[in-house]
């Protein structure tokens, strides 16, 4: 028996974006980090672009696929690293969902990027505190991680906006 899958055009587009995100995710994982948990999160640019071009569902697919396949490639599947990646990704999807619900206020990709980066850090911090390191001194690291989140959120927002502008004529 042969299983036939008929991928739609949208499936292919999501797969292409997810592949890009996975590539960035894997490349990023070899970057040295001065502090555990500090990461530029450039793979989120792809999630942002998926959101801008194809909407929330596509962004969620790209995000979750990135975490899943990325972890399989790096070899961290189901490890604490994976749990943290997943919690961050889910939190940022929740943020995206909120953004789609708020129709009155116009938030550009820039603002969304900052919100998503902060959601990532907050979710990961809560997970680390609850499951891995329930030590009060841990909260001292939160402002530093959050500063990095704001800085990289701004950077990713600018990059995503620029890239999206260039992509626009094709849409």
């Amino acid at each position, binding site marked *: 028996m042969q299983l036939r899958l008929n991928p739609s055009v949208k499936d292919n587009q999501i797969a292409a974006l997810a592949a890009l995100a996975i590539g960035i995710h894997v490349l990023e994982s070899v970057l040295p980090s001065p502090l555990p948990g500090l990461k530029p999160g450039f793979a989120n640019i792809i999630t942002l672009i998926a959101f801008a071009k194809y909407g929330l569902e596509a962004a969620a697919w790209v995000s979750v696929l990135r975490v899943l396949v990325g972890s399989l490639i790096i070899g961290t599947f189901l490890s604490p690293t994976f749990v943290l990646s997943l919690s961050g990704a889910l939190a940022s999807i929740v943020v995206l969902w909120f953004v789609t619900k708020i129709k009155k206020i116009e938030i550009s990709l*820039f*603002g969304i990027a*900052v919100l998503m980066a902060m959601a990532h850090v907050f979710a990961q911090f809560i997970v680390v505190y609850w499951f891995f390191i329930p030590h*009060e001194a841990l909260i001292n690291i*939160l402002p530093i991680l959050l500063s990095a989140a704001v800085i990289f959120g701004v950077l990713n927002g600018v990059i995503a906006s620029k890239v999206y502008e260039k992509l626009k004529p094709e849409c």
Partner: protein
Amino acid sequence: MINLTSADKVILLMSVLILAALYYFTWSNGESNRYASLYVADEKRYIIDLFEEKILTIDGVQGVSKLEVAEGRIRFIESPCSSHFCIRSGWLNQTIGLIACLPNGINVHFSNKNKTYDAINF
């Protein structure tokens, strides 16, 4: 440059404000570590206000230990033990969260801490 909507500016401002507040609450020596608990032979418990400057004289298992309390900190300054690890470990701090003189049966830690694990590893 890119065009920021007013919502973007509000988000950016809010995040900077949250950061400032977080730095203030976590990095300034706040009230969170105002009290320390001192146990003698795991039985007697004292609550010590760290912002009340004094020299504590505690009767331990071996003899009398003296502890100095100053500016929200506490340390051993005298103990009857031979190794004096308690004195050498210095002020009680967040990283280790405990100073103790085991021969004399005295240990001190921040009292707002719940007794949980330091870290869990898989």
